[in-house]
């Protein structure tokens, strides 16, 4: 068996691949957060709860209505995005003129309510969600046995992230959005409905979280607390990437997944903390984040 620094390459590649799978989730979630922060100036603490909601809606679809995985992948994000838009219209929209911190506190409260409600209804032991039959089984890659479903998650995440990036960077709609981020008043003056754009952006960011939730359902059991520990990590990803930077969020998401995977090879217990070490170093050296503008 080959080794690198005394670690069998087999184990190293295996952990890196698992890291990439985790990174796929970080990327999807932090992309949504970064979009929302860019335009709304709101740090959406309820993002983890909405991710959890995505998984739960898929589970409920399956168990109450018999709607399968593939339809859930389309419908659950729509349901959750509608919920998100409701929140934006009724609550968040009142806070845009205030300090960021109020948005953070409000969404923190919302996260507590959503998680508490699901805990109250379903307990925290988690509900199983079967892998769709089309994606069952696995491939033997030589260095590890990769369940097909986990491979699919990475592919789906890459497609989503790339698609979103193209949408924002290469289309007219994206151009309005970027302009709105820079100077909302001016864009409004050009006759573009900025409040509508803000609402839809929030809905889009939330939908991304919900898709991640549906993708996660067959891997982790559907659990009311699945988002609450993830959200803190995803925050760190957004801060490291540079708040509001779309590309930064995507790249940092995958990258930190890999860093975590690497840590699991050498010092498994520290895997959940290494991201915060990276974050504090980045914030000390480059406060605007790796891909952030300005200083």
């Amino acid at each position, binding site marked *: 068996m080959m080794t690198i620094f005394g670690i*069998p390459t*087999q*184990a190293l590649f*295996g*952990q890196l691949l*698992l890291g990439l*799978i985790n990174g796929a989730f970080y990327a999807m979630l932090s992309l949504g957060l970064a979009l929302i922060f860019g335009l709304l100036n709101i740090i959406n603490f309820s993002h983890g709860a909405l991710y959890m909601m995505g998984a739960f809606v898929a589970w409920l679809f399956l168990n109450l209505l018999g709607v399968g995985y593939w339809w859930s992948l389309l419908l659950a994000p729509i349901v959750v995005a509608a919920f998100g838009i409701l929140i934006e219209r009724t609550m968040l929209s009142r806070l845009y003129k205030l300090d960021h911190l109020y948005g953070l506190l409000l969404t923190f409260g919302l996260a507590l309510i959503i998680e508490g409600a699901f*805990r109250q209804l379903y*307990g*925290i*032991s*988690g509900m*199983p969600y079967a*892998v769709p039959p089309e994606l069952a089984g*696995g491939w*033997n890659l030589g260095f*590890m*046995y990769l*369940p097909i479903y*986990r491979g699919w998650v990475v592919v789906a995440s890459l497609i989503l992230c790339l698609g979103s990036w193209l949408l924002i960077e290469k289309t007219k709609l994206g151009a309005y959005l970027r302009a709105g981020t820079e100077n909302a008043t001016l864009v409004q003056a050009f006759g573009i409905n900025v409040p509508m754009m803000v609402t839809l952006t929030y809905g889009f960011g939330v939908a991304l979280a919900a898709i991640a939730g549906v993708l996660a359902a067959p*891997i*982790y*059991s559907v*659990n009311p607390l*699945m988002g609450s520990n993830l959200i803190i990590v995803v925050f760190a990803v957004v801060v490291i990437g540079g708040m509001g930077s779309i590309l930064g969020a995507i790249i940092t998401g995958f990258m930190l997944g890999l860093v975590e*995977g690497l840590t*699991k090879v050498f010092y*498994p*217990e520290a*895997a*959940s903390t290494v991201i915060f070490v990276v974050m504090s170093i980045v914030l000390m050296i480059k406060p605007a984040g790796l891909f952030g503008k300005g200083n």
Partner: protein
Amino acid sequence: MIMKRLLLSAAALALSTGLAHAQFTDGKVKIGVLTDLSGTYSDLAGQGAIVAAQMAIEDFGGKINGQPIELISADHQNKADIASGIARKWYENEGVDAIAELVTTAAAVAVREVAREKGKIDLNSGAASTPLTNDKCSPTGFHWTYDTYAMAVGTGDAVVKSGGKTWFFLTADYAFGHNLQAQTERVVLANGGTVKGSVKHPFPNADFSSFLLQAQASGAQIIGLANAGADTINAIKQAKEFGIVAGGQKLAGLLVFITDVNSLGLDIAQGMVLTTGFYWDMDDGTRAFSKRFAERMKGKMPSMVQAGVYSQVTHYLKAAAAAKTDEGIKVADKMRELPIQDFFAKNGKIRADGRMVHDMYLAQVKAPSESKGPWDYYKVLRTIPGDEAFQPLSMSTCPLVKK
């Protein structure tokens, strides 16, 4: 003044939570069931434990020497600080005489400390760790259903003797997991096996993939799961997903409950060897109790933890009736004096260290073809006599044991 009113109303709120009871417990006997009602262990203990305690009280007649028996329950969420807080409040302010069930070692030890200080009784059924009857033992603390020593003597021994010589452990990172791993390692080494390594996972944990990969890389024949409840279920399912069983390694669940087998399904669980303190389908006594239990629990059969709660509460009530008091230390002495004779334990006895010694069973999970219906899951391979199953007093570090 409004500030004051606010504080007063906060104080009134606190009062109305039932804190105003007198400090003495005369006039009634009160039992608290403190368990995991929402988390990883809620299936194997949880609501079922409360039902078992209720049944014990009803079967006893609901009264003890003419005084009513009351039952309260709460969720400790598997957290030491919550368990300790509730236990303190129950003992100090709500006239609770004995706390039963107590799954999760961290919570059990926290309650043990409070109970010892207050001279009140704690009855453990769900927690597994041996320190409860060693350095953490107490004159008023009891350990009922099983412990990690018994698990290792049963499962660990059977697996090594059937050829599983090299081991890798997947261990829940808290006292229970460490203890279960240590006990099993001892048995593995004593039988000529070797331990290739171990990895600790957070508790509770959802994604075992990276840990399983390490276990796979170790090349050990047996992956020992030193965890319990939902953690064990997730680990077994994901091991299947990652083709670990297909690759030739075997999983050994070191603590598996019938509720886990039920969640996994016989397809996945078949052939697994496990140790249990109770199986519903042993004789008329166990079947009669389990049938009544299932009627109240939507058809679920009792786990060993839940059956143990019935047994321990019943024994406590018997002892309190015999001692004619609810004073902790006196009832505890009576409990040690009386033998335990019920469907759960035949000729059970309580030792100086608080261990209730009874027979354990080595069982194997049936294949789907062998199972005749729901909950027909185990075939009992052998009965492990109580004195063999539990740690001998000569090894005990409990200061109450006279040597």
